[in-house]
């Protein structure tokens, strides 16, 4: 009986102590917690870097990236050279209703055209609106954070 009373009082002591501590709840729409810089919120597209190589669309596990492009002839750089052919992006859509936020597309992109942004407030009442086109994806570029420094002992990689 003594042990039971002690157990009850011990528990009550913990709840009382917690009551005196400040609350950890964040009242979301009024106050906002900043996500970590690495948080995978939304994918941003830097359109001028994209070469329509389709690597991201092919490596996506649930095929939620839709890319269309065409080739254009540009005049040669030097006098008498052959005209260059340039790939131009017509359509770059990511369907965020399907996206698993795995980040494989960002990782495979060989020309650094895709970036993660920790922004997360883009929910829509209509599911079709979650298909972000390339203009909308380009707007997210402003929110992409700078790469943060690494912990002690990490190997510093040279710029590619």
């Amino acid at each position, binding site marked *: 009986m003594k*042990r*039971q009373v*002690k*157990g*009850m009082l*011990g*528990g009550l*002591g*913990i*709840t009382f102590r*917690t009551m005196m501590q400040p609350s*950890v709840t964040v009242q979301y729409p009024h106050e906002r917690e900043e*996500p*970590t*810089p*690495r*948080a*995978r919120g939304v994918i941003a597209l830097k359109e001028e870097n994209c070469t329509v190589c389709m690597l991201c669309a092919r*490596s996506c*596990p649930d095929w939620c990236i839709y890319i269309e492009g065409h080739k254009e002839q540009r005049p040669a750089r030097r006098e008498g050279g052959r005209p260059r052919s340039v790939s131009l992006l017509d359509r770059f859509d990511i369907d965020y209703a399907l996206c*698993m*936020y*795995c*980040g*494989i597309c960002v*990782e495979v992109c060989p020309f650094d055209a895709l970036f*993660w942004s920790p922004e997360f407030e883009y929910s829509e009442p209509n599911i079709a609106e979650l298909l972000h086109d390339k203009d909308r994806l380009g707007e997210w570029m402003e929110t992409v954070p700078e790469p*943060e*420094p*690494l*912990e*002690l*002992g*990490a*190997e510093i990689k040279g710029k590619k």
Partner: protein
Amino acid sequence: MKVDPRLPTPGGIPEVDIDPMLYRHLAGAAVNVELDTGDMILNLGPQHPATHGTLRLVVRLDGERVIAADPIIGYMHRGYEKLVEYRTYPQITTLINRIDWLSSFANEVPFIFAAEQLMGIEAPPRARYIRTMLTELSRIATFLLFLGEMGLQVGAITPAFYGFRDREYALNLIEAVTGGRFHPNFNRIGGVKDDLPWGWINDCRQSMKKVLDSCDDFENLVAGNPIFEQRTRSIGIVPRELGAAYGVSGSNLRSSGVDWDLRRDGDPYGLVYDELDWKVWTHPDGDSFARYWVRLQETRESARMVLQMLDALPSGPIMAKVPRIIKVPEGEVWVNCENPLGEMGYYIFSKGATGPFRVKIRSASFSNVSILPWLLRGAYVPDVITILASLYFILGDIDR
């Protein structure tokens, strides 16, 4: 004493307060002979809060006592074993994150280690340390949720809030490194994706101290509470031979007195457990309280392990040299590991393509749940919830 649970142990059932066979006799006897009330068939679920998902439990009741229970699984079957045959190795880690969504980092590690073994690649030491740390952090996150939620299932609402609050310490740390709270997708063949961010070690040290404090709180608030003890003591006893025969593993088996942990006794699957100083906790009783107590001690032990690893973290690269397009050579491999919920294993059969030819996934909860028909027979209806909560399974882990 080390006991391989697959072998029959001499000495019979260990000393427990109530002979668990008594339950079976009680279940066989007709309780209400005079009244002849007849049986009632009751559906628990598929949407029942105590089942953490969609587990349907058909129980036949005689009064308040369960005569027979039949768990019906498969409501969340997503066909992972077939799905991964059509994906490449880097894509598969995103899928197997979703098997056991509470400890998804621990799901990735054995799969990646199996592929590494087939390719003959070994991850560098710093990558192995980061993997081990994040595996233990996901174990802490899983168990802290259990510690709070187990109280909720037996009627105490305060620990549930504490559990969800304290789990954030571990989840925030995982998010700061991997970018994802629940689905990290952080392991790569040959290492990990990224190094730790600046200041993480300091944050982790402080958070682990908070976790150790909250473990003390749970010990006093829940495990020391007389009502909680009465609700859980000698409820749902798993005898050690029977548990081993059903394939129950992990902390559920350790709380039946079997001193068996794959982190220590098995192949360490590329992690650094053999370099750490830690202890495997067991409890002789095998009841719901023992399962709670063992998980409480294991949370503490994991926090201590993380603190040790923070001190011993080596410097160096985090990726071994791997080809750009990953093709795993022909062969087959079986890797099993100690997940928070129990033994998890991957059998990979490769034919030399960019994806596996066949993958068999052994998940812990599937075997843990298979003992339910035996365990629930003769229990009272409120105890059904206690037993379901204390076995601690994840439906995604059962159905895959």
